[in-house]
């Protein structure tokens, strides 16, 4: 087994669920183009207005979004799992430096798309 595969970054209960924060980690994707980094985040049950973007440090971006309703794992078919969440939360490492002040975003079909211009 390689070193990387022994380092498990997701919690053992799956879904990237943080019970204390009542949040789960959304699916996201990063694409590094020549001039910009494009981040997309899949956010079902989210209104555009509740999406918040932050850059906690120079090399990462934080996405937070409240869901339009409280969602339990029971609602999602996992009857044996107790718990619920009311938001999505992810801290995503930027592979190259970006200028967050010039970031543009759009939200369509429940998908957030953020364009972050590269600084080099």
């Amino acid at each position, binding site marked *: 087994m390689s070193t990387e595969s022994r380092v498990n970054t997701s919690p053992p209960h*799956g*879904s990237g669920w943080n019970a204390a924060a009542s949040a789960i980690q*959304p*699916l996201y*994707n990063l694409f590094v183009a020549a001039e910009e980094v494009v981040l*997309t985040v*899949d956010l*079902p*049950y989210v209104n555009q207005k509740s999406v918040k973007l932050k850059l906690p440090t120079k090399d990462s971006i934080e996405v937070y979004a409240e869901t339009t309703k409280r*969602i339990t794992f029971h*609602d*999602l*078919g996992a009857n044996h799992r107790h718990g619920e969440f009311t938001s999505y939360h992810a801290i995503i490492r930027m592979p190259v430096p970006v200028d967050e002040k010039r970031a543009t975003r*759009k939200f*369509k*079909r*429940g*998908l957030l*798309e953020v364009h972050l211009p590269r600084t080099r």
Partner: protein
Amino acid sequence: MSANLSGNDGLRIVETGSVPKGAVVINGLPDVGLVGLLAASHIISDLKLREVGAIESDLLPPMIVLHGGEPKAPFRIFSGTGLVVVISETVIPGSLIRPLVNGLVDWARDKNVRLMLSLGGMAVANRQDIDVPKVFAALSAKELEPRLNGAAEILEEGYIVGAYGLLLRKCVATGLPAITLLTQSYYNYPDPEAAGAALTAVNKILDLKIDVSELLKRGEEIRLRSKDMMHRTHEEMNKMNKSHEYDLPPLYG
């Protein structure tokens, strides 16, 4: 032909119910946007198909899935109204693809299957801006084009990576008619709208009346419920260089 095109490495298709002869087989394996899996699962529930078998292999992870409290194999076969639907509720490891394709085609020929119809996704960068995803078709033989009934555009050049690519080639080699429908979708987000577009094409090709309204209405729930499955599928697609499909096609054919 190489040994890879014939061996099935202990893959077992276990029938627990009756599988009709001369049926159409619809494959809904997890890949891009989970289009095939979502579409095929919807066919099973909308047409109330019965479980008639399972695909078992030592190459699958040691697991079962519980449905209604009953332990089930994650890779199962359903049937009803002259259709046979194959779905996998677990990620198919790359090492299983060749034995799976060989085993499935041998089994299909034994059942005199008249058409292998495989459903998958084709990632597009601007998926968010597409209202009605387009459906493309790869055929085992040119003569199958009229069967499409205008529901899909022919895919003339390009790569198909994964089970559906090998399946198409094995079908050509054995003379089994096969159509692979690839619907425009997100790459690594579950895409119920794309599954709906795929089913609209299936309705036209097979003259069925599968109702897609429920699938679209439950879109957000389906996206959330299949999030973890999508995540695991994405990891497996990366391993088998699925992104190869977006390369320019080779120059000489």
